Every structure is written in structure tokens, then in C-alpha cells.
């Protein structure tokens, strides 16, 4: 009698619905772009919720910074977004320089030649970063070949960077007050001319390649099916989550710090800011994965434009470092943001007038953009999660700092 009751109760307990499966995607996974861990609650293939867990690459950059002098911090910024390390160097240097400029007792100015070199190198680095994003995105969606094409071109850029600073990934090239002089590029010398010619050669080779890549991947119908209309991030959502850079422009916000809050010498060049819009005849929805991806492809062309203008003008003569003894900013605090390839890179620096900062906070664009993942991925499929992560283009070194 007892046993029958038990079986009956078991039958009643049997739920007609399938259980959720909890899967850990990462921290070791081929396409989480580093050591991101996602806790997926799956109902079959459908994702009920994807909870990101970060911190696997945490080095406590901010604690390090409090114990180092300003120039010593620059190599640590290299390790934040190691794909676009030049831009990270620059972002930090800009913030410190802004603080130095606020000191009225000293006359501080970054030399013209250094500014030109910075823009030149950083725009090339932007191309390199977007190339990597394009390649890995193709691989995430399942096309392996674009990845190798992207790396082939990126290799040429890395060789160019190696020629000015001796490093391929973590450059430590842009310094406070100018750029590094480790490998001198004498104004008007043959070395300089050769270097600029080499960049021009790369641009001539690379510009038609962008159209090739668009043919290969962007307009591929399977690729469009996978990315168009997937994970639409509206304008309000993008602003609220602090998504910046290509992610924000992918949601249709016409905003680029290089144009809207011009720093350095960006106001001297002519370039367009690509902004996504609905393309009904293709099927692209404003703010979907495809829009975010396409912005990066278009931005590469704009970077080529800027670099071409510098090459046409030629680098001005003069020193590449500001004349200063030691980096000792006045007492005060600054928040300065610059347009890195992944979005607004902000550095918040609190100085007490000593050679070491009291507080340095890096506001990384990926950190904010990644926090939107949980909302974006709800109700989509496992394969879509990969498409989203690739389209917001995260680098874990920057998320975890």
C-alpha cells in the first residue's frame, strides 16, 4: 500500500516541462574572447538568462597605479586593451597632460610633431584593432577564412609599429608629453621617408581589401541571417548601459569624441563618422549585431582617410617630447575620455601634487558594454550569444583591468 502511494506521488511530481540546464560557458571557451565566464540557463537551445562573471584577468591596475609614478603607469595601460595598446597609452597620457596643462606656473605643451605621430599611429592601431574584431567575428559565426585574412593584414601593421617602438603588442610608445624616442625618426631623414612610404604602401594595399572583406563576409547571406535583427540595442538602452564607440553608433547615435569633443589635432582632418541606420532592403535593423559590426568596417575606411591626410601633409619638424623635467601634476583631479577603437576610454586621475597619483580609475568601454549582455541575450539562442559577444567586441584585459 505504501509503495503504491509513493509511486503515485512520484507521478504527480513529474513535471510536464523539461528542466533548465545550467551551463558554464567559459572561462576557457574558444569564442568568449578571453576569460569571460557566462552562466547560461538554457531551455534546450534557448537562453533563458546569460549571467556574465568577470574578473578572471583582474590585475588590479588601479592599485598598481597608486604605487607608481605617472610614466611608470603607461606600460600598465598597454595591458588593458592589448589589441589597441597605442590608444590606451594615449588615453592615459592625454588625461595626465590635461592635468599638467591646468598648472599655471609651468608652461606645458605637446610638440606638433608628436601630435601628428600620435594620430598617425593611433589611427593605424584602430585599423589593426578593427581588423582583429572583424576576423574573430567571422570565426565566431563559423567562417574561418576571414580570420586569417585579417591577421595577414594586421601583421603588416604590427611590423610598422615594431619599427617605431620595437614592440608588437604592448608598445609603451606614447609618453606623457610626446612620444618615445627609443628608435629615432629624424625629421626629414631617409628613415622617416621610408617609413611613411611603407605606410602609404600598406594603405594602397589595404583600402581595396576592405571591399573584398565586405564581399566575403558582410554581404554573405548566411552571415546576414545570423547577425541581422539579432540582439537589437535601442538608443536609450545603449546610452543607459554606457555603450560607447562603435556600439553606440551602431545604435544610431551620431557621436564620436574625435569630432564632438576634439582633442589633440583631430579638428584638422576631414573624415566621416559612420552611423548605423535601418536598411530594410537588406534586413538590417538599427542596433543589431550586423550594424555594430558594419560600423567597424566603415571606420577602417575613415581611419585610412585620416592617415592619408597626414601622409599628404607630411610630419612637421621639431622635437617629439615636451620640454619638462619631471611629471608632477598639480593638486587636483581630472576625468578625460578619448575615442579608443572600442569606445570611450576614460581615465579618472586624482593627484595630490606628488609624482604618484592618489587614484587612477580606468573607465573601460568594454566593461560598460558587456554589462548589457545579460539584457541583450535573454530569449535568444546559444549561437546568438556568440554573435553578441563578438559584435560588442570585448577585450577581457580591459574589462577586468
Amino acid at each position, binding site marked *: 500500500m505504501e509503495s503504491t502511494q509513493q509511486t503515485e506521488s512520484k507521478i504527480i511530481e513529474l513535471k510536464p516541462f523539461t528542466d533548465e540546464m545550467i551551463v558554464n560557458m567559459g572561462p576557457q571557451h574558444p569564442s568568449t574572447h578571453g576569460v569571460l565566464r557566462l552562466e547560461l540557463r538554457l531551455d534546450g537551445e534557448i537562453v533563458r538568462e546569460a549571467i556574465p562573471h568577470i574578473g578572471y584577468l583582474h590585475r588590479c591596475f588601479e592599485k598598481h597605479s597608486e604605487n607608481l609614478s605617472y610614466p611608470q603607469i603607461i606600460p600598465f595601460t598597454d595591458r588593458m586593451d592589448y589589441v589597441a595598446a597605442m590608444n590606451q597609452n594615449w588615453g592615459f597620457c592625454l588625461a595626465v597632460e590635461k*592635468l599638467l596643462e591646468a598648472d599655471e606656473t609651468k608652461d606645458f605643451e605637446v610638440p606638433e610633431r608628436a601630435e601628428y605621430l600620435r594620430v598617425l599611429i593611433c589611427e593605424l592601431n584602430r585599423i589593426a584593432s578593427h581588423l582583429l574584431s572583424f576576423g574573430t567575428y567571422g570565426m565566431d559565426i563559423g567562417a574561418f577564412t576571414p580570420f586569417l585574412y585579417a591577421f595577414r593584414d594586421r601583421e603588416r601593421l604590427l611590423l610598422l609599429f615594431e619599427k617605431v617602438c620595437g614592440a608588437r603588442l604592448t608598445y609603451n610608445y606614447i609618453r606623457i608629453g610626446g612620444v618615445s624616442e627609443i628608435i629615432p625618426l629624424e625629421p626629414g631623414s631617409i628613415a622617416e621617408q621610408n617609413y611613411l612610404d611603407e605606410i602609404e604602401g600598406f594603405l594602397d594595399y589595404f583600402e581595396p581589401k576592405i571591399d573584398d572583406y565586405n564581399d566575403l563576409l558582410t554581404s554573405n547571406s548566411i552571415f546576414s541571417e545570423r547577425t541581422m535583427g539579432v540582439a537589437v540595442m535601442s538608443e536609450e538602452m545603449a*546610452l543607459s*548601459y*554606457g555603450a560607447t564607440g562603435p556600439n553606440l553608433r551602431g545604435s544610431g547615435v551620431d557621436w564620436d569624441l574625435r569630432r564632438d569633443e576634439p582633442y589633440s589635432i583631430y579638428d584638422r582632418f576631414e573624415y566621416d563618422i559612420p552611423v548605423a541606420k535601418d536598411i530594410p532592403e537588406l534586413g538590417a535593423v538599427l542596433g543589431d549585431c550586423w550594424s555594430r559590426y558594419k560600423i567597424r568596417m566603415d571606420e577602417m575606411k575613415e581611419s585610412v582617410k585620416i592617415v592619408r591626410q597626414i601622409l599628404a601633409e607630411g610630419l612637421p619638424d621639431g622635437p617629439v617630447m615636451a620640454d619638462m623635467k619631471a611629471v608632477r601634476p598639480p593638486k*587636483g583631479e581630472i576625468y578625460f575620455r578619448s575615442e579608443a577603437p572600442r569606445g570611450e576610454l576614460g581615465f579618472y586621475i586624482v593627484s595630490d601634487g606628488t609624482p604618484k597619483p592618489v587614484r587612477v580609475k580606468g573607465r573601460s568601454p568594454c566593461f*560598460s558594454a558587456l*554589462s548589457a549582455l545579460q539584457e541583450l541575450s535573454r530569449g535568444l539562442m546559444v549561437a546568438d550569444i556568440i554573435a553578441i559577444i563578438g559584435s560588442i567586441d570585448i577585450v577581457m584585459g580591459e574589462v577586468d583591468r
Partner: protein
Amino acid sequence: MNPEEIYKTLSDKFGGAILGYDTELAGDPNIQIAPTAIADVCQFLAETDTLAFDSLMCLSGIDLGVKEEDLSIVYHLYGMQHRHTVVLKTSVPKTDAHLPTVSHIWKTADWHEREAYDLYGILFEGHTDLRRILLPDDWEGYPLRKDYQEPDFYRGMRVPY
């Protein structure tokens, strides 16, 4: 609107909760606000049409030194519509660091507040998911506080090696 006008607007509206306007130091001027009023002030800044601060650029905690009794929290806001910026600053005592959350106003504050909690031990009241974000869940202490002592061991592993 420039920060000074915003300061005036805020002090008209909130009175005593706005503690001051700091322009003495180099860099960005900031508006000092009482910690209990921060959520209301942010709500006002975000929802008033003339201000419309629709994005929170950065939220950071600061510990100015071992002898300081207070932790500061700095909010860098930006209004995309009017293209203006403002810096809000508030202080809470180290021993009892808690203040209202702003994560319901800007969603990005969710992770930024978790980071401030993780590294400074600032409790944000009303935050739905205040867990450690960068450090392991069983980490003890708040590393970015100036009085933080490195532990000798973490899970049986020697830390300063």
C-alpha cells in the same frame, strides 16, 4: 549649462543637500552632495528636460589616505542632448559606508557600483545584485582602501611570494 549653473539649479531645488561647489583645485570642478540625497539628485539631473543627463560616464570610489575618515564617490555625468558635463561628489565614512544606489537611473551604474563595492566596500542601498565583481567571492577586505593589508594566505596559497 555649465557646472556653475547646474550647481545653482541644484541648490535651489535641494537646498541643504548640496554641500558645496569646489573649483579650487586643478581640473574638473565638482558639486558636493550629501550621500543620502545622491539618488534624488541624480534622478532630477536625469529626468529634467533642461539637464537631461542621460549617460553616466564613470562612477568611482576614492580613498584619499590612511588618515582620512571618509571615502568619496564621484559621478561623472554627461548629457548627450545638451552636450554638457557635470561631476558630483559625495563622501561617506569608512566605518559605515553606505549610500543609495543610482543603478535604476543608469543601468551602467549596476556594474560600476559593484566594482566600487568590491574594491572599496561601499554599500549601495537598493542595488539588486551587490556582489563582488572583479575579485573572487571569498576575498576578504577591500583592496583599494589605503589601510588595506595584504593577506598572508589566500586559500592556503602564500600571497606575497
